[in-house]
């Protein structure tokens, strides 16, 4: 059991040991970093490709059709076919666009989404870079991605993409605030920002120590998940590339490999955010039987499935609904959640559960009073017509 669990860690040590013989010792730290970098560099595009495949299959199944099954057995080679198609597509740069920013934008979008992977705890002892400010690093890097989307929109010099970029910017900024606030209770409880220690703090007792099983954990997880769906511009919140209204939002003028980079960044972001959600609230690689990295994979897979499930179900939100939802509901709810977490921390067990749950409930009811009004059909009264 232990071998399977530490499979990758032992693999890395084995490589280091074998290379010790012929490499001068000064290179060893670089080599160990290099190994984890190549692991991520291989793992990330692969997950991205097979997330696109998974998304098309799941959404197809939800709409009573098969999804790609021509290329390869179950359409498994479809992502590779897409990749090749993207490579062969001609790369058009609009006439008026300033080429530097046009070229820079896809790079600036992909780099942060790859950086996010360096901080995720894939398994016991399998965090690429064990920063003690891992979580803060994650959020800081994801805010760089926001800017890159603006660069993309501005550089293509067309009204639709600029509109899409401005919307994307406004949306991602206004959802970043509740995202950070929903993470604060987890940091309060564990006392550290490092993702590794957060997962270790949720260990034990057959998985009931996950943060999800506390009143503030549930609300925090919901807020976190909603904000991460919006941070990654997916379904109910995918206004920036709202296909129906503004052509394809900020990546209208991108074709070929550059568009593939934007596409890849979106999926890497989706995977990274669901992985973070699993780490913070579902106890990363904690789990009774299976090896640790498999537990991490299952939980992230489940959250990615929920994201795709959302895509299969919901229509797109209007921009003002989206904004008012973030500022009027999610942000206050996250603050109430921090209060509830504080109460949970300082009261003894039975009382703390009741008080914090009730605080959250009162908060929810108070906020939903601000909710947009319902609508009822009524007969129109004409003053002059009849």
């Amino acid at each position, binding site marked *: 059991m232990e071998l399977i669990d530490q499979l990758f860690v032992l693999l890395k040590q084995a490589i280091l040991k074998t290379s010790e013989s012929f490499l001068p010792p000064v290179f060893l730290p670089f080599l160990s970093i290099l190994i984890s970098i190549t692991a991520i560099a291989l793992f990330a595009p692969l997950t991205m490709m097979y997330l696109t495949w998974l998304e098309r299959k799941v959404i197809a199944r939800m709409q*009573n059709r098969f999804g790609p099954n021509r290329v390869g057995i179950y359409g498994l080679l479809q992502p590779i076919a897409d990749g090749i198609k993207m490579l062969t597509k001609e790369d058009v740069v609009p006439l008026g666009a300033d080429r530097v920013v046009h070229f820079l934008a896809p790079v600036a979008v992909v780099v942060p989404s790859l950086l996010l992977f360096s901080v995720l705890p894939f398994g016991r002892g399998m965090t690429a870079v064990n920063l003690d400010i891992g979580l803060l690093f994650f959020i800081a890097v994801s805010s760089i991605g926001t800017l890159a989307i603006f660069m993309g929109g501005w550089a293509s010099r067309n009204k639709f993409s600029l509109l899409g970029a401005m919307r994307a910017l406004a949306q991602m900024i206004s959802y970043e605030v509740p995202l950070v606030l929903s993470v604060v209770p987890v940091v309060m409880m564990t006392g550290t920002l490092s993702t590794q220690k957060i997962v270790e703090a949720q260990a034990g007792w057959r998985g009931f120590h996950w943060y999800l099983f506390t009143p503030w954990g549930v609300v925090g997880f919901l807020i976190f998940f909603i904000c991460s769906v919006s941070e990654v511009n997916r379904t109910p919140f995918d206004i920036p590339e709202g296909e129906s209204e503004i052509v394809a939002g900020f990546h209208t003028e991108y074709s070929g490999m550059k568009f593939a980079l934007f596409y890849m960044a979106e999926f890497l972001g989706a995977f990274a955010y669901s992985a973070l959600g699993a780490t913070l609230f579902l106890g990363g690689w904690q789990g009774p039987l299976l090896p640790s990295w498999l537990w991490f994979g299952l939980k992230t897979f489940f959250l990615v499935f929920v994201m795709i*499930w959302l895509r299969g179900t919901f229509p797109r939100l209007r921009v003002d609904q989206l904004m008012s939802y973030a500022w009027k509901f999610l942000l206050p709810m996250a603050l109430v959640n921090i209060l509830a977490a504080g109460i949970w921390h300082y009261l003894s067990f039975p009382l703390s559960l009741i008080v914090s749950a009730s605080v959250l409930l009162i908060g929810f009811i108070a906020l939903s009073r601000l909710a947009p009004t319902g*609508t009822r059909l009524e007969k129109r009264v004409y003053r002059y017509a009849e």
Partner: protein
Amino acid sequence: MSFLYAKRYPLYAKEQLMLGLGIAKGMIVTLKQFIESYTKKGSIFTVQYPEERKPIAEAFRNFPILVYDETPEDPRCVACDICAKECPPKCITIVRDRDEQGRGLQKPKLFDIDVSVCMSCGICEEVCPFDAIYMDKEFELSAYNRMHSLNFHQEQLLRPNSYFHKIRPTDAAQIDAKRKEKEKAKNTQPGTTA
């Protein structure tokens, strides 16, 4: 007449608690579809086209074909040119066959249908007095160029009567019965005068 319009009103207390319910219901519906697509038999009805094919309806018609009884050399068509005259887009061209002395024969030398023009209306089938031309069901007719290969010549149009029975069994049976009667009537009628 009165129009209905959506008036906004504040939520009832009951509705406030149920804010998230609509979302949950919608999600359950899609999840059910997802699971059913694996479990329930009929839920996915897509037909994998080249491998599986849906049966074509009997009355389906596409481009016309010429029917012959025994040998392709003498089709039922007597080159009377009625179908060419009746064809709305004028896509049929017929040239009567001539024997050595130049007298017209009851056989077309050249019979072309420009399939790219034909709108498969079926008028030629109704108009033909000699049951020679009928609508076929063949629809996979892609070609490399528009001009020549879509102008079907006589050899491409001829089909045996057995093929006609295969694609349209009921009509073929009626037509053959009718032809047999006419045959019998023609045999008996000259027989009596002689």
